[in-house]
């Protein structure tokens, strides 16, 4: 197959993926409260409205707080998990890894219902803490995968060298291993953060009526009438995702992070 057919195919699919986003971005620029594309009377008033209307400001704050704390929680669980799996073998390692990957592999509605009955039993249904912990567990898979990749990329000779020079286990961990995997920890956090912002079903099942997040707010507005603010939120989320993954791609090796082993350098 010639190169241009390949590029054409890739370009066509990317076009299809980007098309809905372009339309939504256009819609968010409408002056009037209507969804028209191409937009009429360009204006940025709905971008300001997102940060002024309490209706949208509260979900925005909820979403940010939940994403920031639940991703931190996910990393705090994933880091010891990945370290243990990496340095030791045996049933505990295998079991922990399966447990770490499972939440993200199951249809989320199942985990969502599990969390719902769990928090109902504890009497914490409807609290923000319930959403945070649920998201933390659900998203633990992402830092587990990125940190494991980072650990497996460490040259064993480095650790051997540190040991030969007389470093104790804790010293090796602190001064050799952890600094080497910091980028992988950060990208795991970033992945989890972006996905938590966008997550709907778990947040809805665990505390949907009391702790409104942005996706829940958008869905509720979908039922009761469209406003360009929905387009604004979508655009901001997309920009944030592109910024986060673009940074990872700029400063890290994204193909390697996604599991490619042979990548031609430009």
């Amino acid at each position, binding site marked *: 197959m010639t190169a241009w057919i390949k590029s054409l195919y890739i370009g066509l699919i990317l076009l299809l993926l980007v098309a809905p986003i372009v339309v939504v971005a256009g819609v968010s620029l409408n002056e009037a409260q209507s969804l028209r*594309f191409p937009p009429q009377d360009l204006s940025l008033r709905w971008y300001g409205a997102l940060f002024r209307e309490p209706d949208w400001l509260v979900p925005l704050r909820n979403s940010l707080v939940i994403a920031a704390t639940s991703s931190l929680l996910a990393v705090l669980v994933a880091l*010891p998990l990945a370290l243990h799996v990496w340095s030791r073998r045996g049933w505990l390692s295998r079991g922990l890894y399966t447990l770490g990957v499972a939440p993200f592999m199951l249809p989320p509605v199942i985990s969502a219902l599990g969390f719902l009955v769990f928090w109902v039993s504890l009497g914490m249904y409807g609290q923000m803490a319930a959403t945070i912990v649920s998201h933390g567990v659900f998203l633990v898979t992402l830092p587990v995968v990125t940190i494991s990749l980072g650990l497996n990329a460490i040259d064993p000779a480095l650790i051997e060298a540190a040991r030969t020079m007389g470093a104790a286990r804790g010293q090796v961990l602190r001064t050799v291993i952890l600094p080497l995997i910091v980028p992988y920890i950060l990208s795991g956090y970033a992945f989890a953060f972006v996905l938590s912002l966008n997550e709907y079903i778990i947040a809805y099942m665990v505390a949907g009526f009391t702790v409104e997040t942005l*996706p829940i707010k958008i869905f509720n507005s979908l039922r009761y009438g469209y406003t360009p603010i929905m387009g604004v939120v979508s655009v901001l989320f997309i920009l944030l995702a592109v910024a986060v993954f673009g940074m990872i791609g700029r400063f890290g090796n994204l*193909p390697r992070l*996604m599991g490619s082993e042979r990548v031609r350098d430009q």
Partner: protein
Amino acid sequence: MSAPQKATPGWLAAIPALALGIFFIVPFAIMLSVSVAHRVPGGFFEPGFELASYIRFLSAFFGSILVTSITISAAAAAICVTLAFPFTVFLAGMGRRAQTWILVILLSVLSLSEVIIGFSLSTLLSKTAGVGNLLAWLGILETSRAFTPSLFALLTGMCYLGFPYAVLVLYPPVSRLDPELGEAARTMGASPLRTFFGVTLPLLRAPVLGALVLVFVFTLGVYLLPQVLGRPQHWTLSVHITDQAIFQSNLPFAAAMAVLLLVVTLMLVGLTLLLGRDAGARQ
């Protein structure tokens, strides 16, 4: 893995074991017990052991929901992987810079909320802001019309959701594939198409199956798209699980449906692992 033995203290394992044990295993155990609990109409449920909720699922109504869910998800998985396979093969052959940018786009689309995807597509397929306008302007349609809600819109949404996952599952094995194999086939006189179907595709049988199952399982859990883009008869099992749990306050029945969905999922994942092992052993 070439990790040095015991580079970390053993107690480290206790943190994730406790966290995931309490907040992941226990919820599943409770869900299992709720699925056999006795429903108190109007209230919650009381502990007990009865299979009423499972038996209720065997009715024709819920049976047809299961069939609908499985059919729609299977169709979405087939379309996704058919589109994603050549995409991934071409992608893996590009330079690092191009690959990085395409991966950034894929990851951004992947992270998009189902709500946002539903909203975007319903806008794109709507009468006032979408392709209807474009087609009317081009003269293909007489006047603009909406393409949503419909089965077509729902399948489009599910494919949009599943496509990045399919590519990212296929990407590692595809990029590890030795390019010399394809070159060898070409040198021996095989046409590009023949190389593709005779060499590349058979070598990647297990990952392709894996991608199919992943997208299938993933779209089986889709909750919002059927409501935004589909008609009520396209509502999938996930929609009904949530409906029962939140709006009908029938937690035992919702839990029973979730357990059944879990069983179907695990069986499929097990089957894929088995098939993958077979394919691996034969190579």
